[in-house]
């Protein structure tokens, strides 16, 4: 599925395009090497090749069409960018988290592990389960904020929450154990 070497995490992004009724949904399906990726945008597979990327700029080819994107704002609730000279704003969809992690564990053998680890450093925005809760794979365990984006961390397996290692507002480092789920 995801390129093992680079540990691509399948992000599922859901936005609403400002000033329109347009809802958008997309995810990275896989990395195919040479800076090329397969994405799923609005349910359709698309090929993307990165040309250059910096902290606020992406130049890329999407299905053989060149685009340049510059990010002007990247906050919790909205992302404003200029693409090919056109300014647009994505708003967080009110019905769901903006970014849902499909995979929280980094290993393919995640199911057998007890520890739910954080892939990213971040600040704990909310804790959504408590010790003793019976949860299912994919349930949101907590929400972290990182680089001004809120990211839901989901359980990597079905099980019972044995312990929570988090405090609201606290910072977690990469690979910190967030919870034990048995």
């Amino acid at each position, binding site marked *: 599925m995801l390129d093992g070497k*680079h540990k*691509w*995490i399948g*992000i599922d*992004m859901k*936005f609403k*395009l*400002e*000033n*329109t009724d*347009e809802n*958008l949904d*997309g*995810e*990275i399906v896989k990395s195919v090497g040479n*800076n090329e*990726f397969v*994405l799923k*945008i*609005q349910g359709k597979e*698309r090929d*993307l090749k*990165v*040309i*250059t*990327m*910096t*902290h606020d700029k*992406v130049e*890329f080819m*999407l299905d053989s*069409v060149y*685009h340049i*994107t*510059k*990010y002007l704002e990247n906050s919790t609730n909205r*992302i404003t*960018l*200029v*693409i*090919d*000279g*056109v*300014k*647009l704003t*994505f708003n967080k969809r009110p019905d769901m988290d903006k*970014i849902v992690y499909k995979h929280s564990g980094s290993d393919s053998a995640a199911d057998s592990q007890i520890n739910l680890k954080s*892939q*990213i*450093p971040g600040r704990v925005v909310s804790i959504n389960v408590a010790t003793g809760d019976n949860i299912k794979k994919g349930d949101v365990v907590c929400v972290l904020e*990182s*680089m001004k*984006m809120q990211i839901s961390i989901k359980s990597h397996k079905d099980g019972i929450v044995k312990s929570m290692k988090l405090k609201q507002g606290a910072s977690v480092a*990469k690979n910190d154990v967030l919870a034990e789920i048995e």
Partner: protein
Amino acid sequence: MIKKILIANRGEIAIRVIKTCNALGIKSVAVYSDEDVNSKHVKMASEAYHIGAASPSQSYLNMEKIAETTIISGADAIHPGYGFLSENAEFADLCEKKKINFIGPSGKSMRLCGDKMECKDVMIKAKVPTVPGSLGIVEEVEKALDVAHSIGYPVLLKSVFGGGGRGIRLVHDEKELREAFEIASGESKAAFGKSALFVEKFLPKIRHIEFQLARDKHGNAVHIFERECSIQRRHQKLIEMSPSPVVDQKIRDEIGEIAVKAAVAVDYHNAGTAEFLRLDDGSFYFIEINARLQVEHPVTELVSGLDLVKLQIDIANGQEIPFKQKDLKVNGCSIECRINAEDTFLDFAPSTGKIFDVNIPSGPGVRVDTYLYPGCTVSPYYDSLMGKLITWGQNFEEARQRMTLALSDFYIEGVETAIPLYQTILNSKEFISGDLSTDFLDRFKILDRLRDDMKKEASGKSEAALAATLIHSEFLKNRIKSHKEHSVRWKTQVDRH
């Protein structure tokens, strides 16, 4: 003969004048305020002198300082550009007194052009058609009411000292006229020490068409065709073109001759502009003479092949205009869009700040006059015109297509501009068919269409933007995770070489 010109201006017009100075082997002297030490005109001129604080009254309007700097720098002439001191008769007089060659008309001629009522009077005597209204200024509201009654409402109440759309009020009835008169009279008294208002018939669905003029000190005079400047907002021009879609050679000859007559009537010498209103029935009415180079002079340059700044300098040198009316032919079509730093959706309010990035379009038939460069600043102290995009084509359609392409290449990061608005206008069937008028934006609800266009554009790009955002989020995340691990992966291709 002029050897060194001080340019009493800033921004794109100062640069425009420097370019002609360079072409003629004339030294150029720039002046700059505290705000402008980094400006492009300072960098381009042969020399540059600091003349004061940012506020125009302390720098670009400081007549004594500018005259003094001219003498210190050894310049023998002043080019005033447009705005600032360009139509200040007192300054023209001061230059004459100090034996500085002012590149423009005499103070006397300028006074006549500047005093709209006196000018109108002269024009009526010279049998130049003018807009129905008061014969001279009206000091009393009762007099204004009489005039309005005789020519019929709605009428415009105008200040003699106005210009560029300022000091004009539209009134529909007696009550509005009384109110407007009181306010306008007060404003005028506060600013100029006297109330100098006049009343003119309001003409609906008018076009603004102007004729480029040139007259030398030997009395030779020509017109260099018309410019159609009907696309405006708040009485200020946004898009200009030459030729006008409603002017054929017969009309050009006829109105051009009237324009030349107007220049003769005020004993004008310099390049200048006679402005007219054109009604739907095809009749033209003279409004005023602009006694200076216009912002929109490049469209005339592109269809005539002339360098109007050179022509101004030649005339100031006392030379004869080196061509006759019959030598001038309209070649193709040219359109100009003013690139202002302003927010279309905030009623065109100024938008100022640092320009982080700019891409200036180029290509066949594309000309850009601008002071922009990456890292420059758009100052709140001065007007919002950052530059002008001008295209030329063999015909209107080619010029229009080149304009839409050039507009999409014109990227300015840091301030808002009307570039998206221009795209909507340029692509509208009404603009294409030439159905122009000064109320074009309102008449065709252009701002609503612009909103729709922008929605459509954003919608068309939304999937690509989402794709970028997915990958970019990964990148940011990986960057946090490990700079080193992924640095090779994200190294740009450019760096590879």
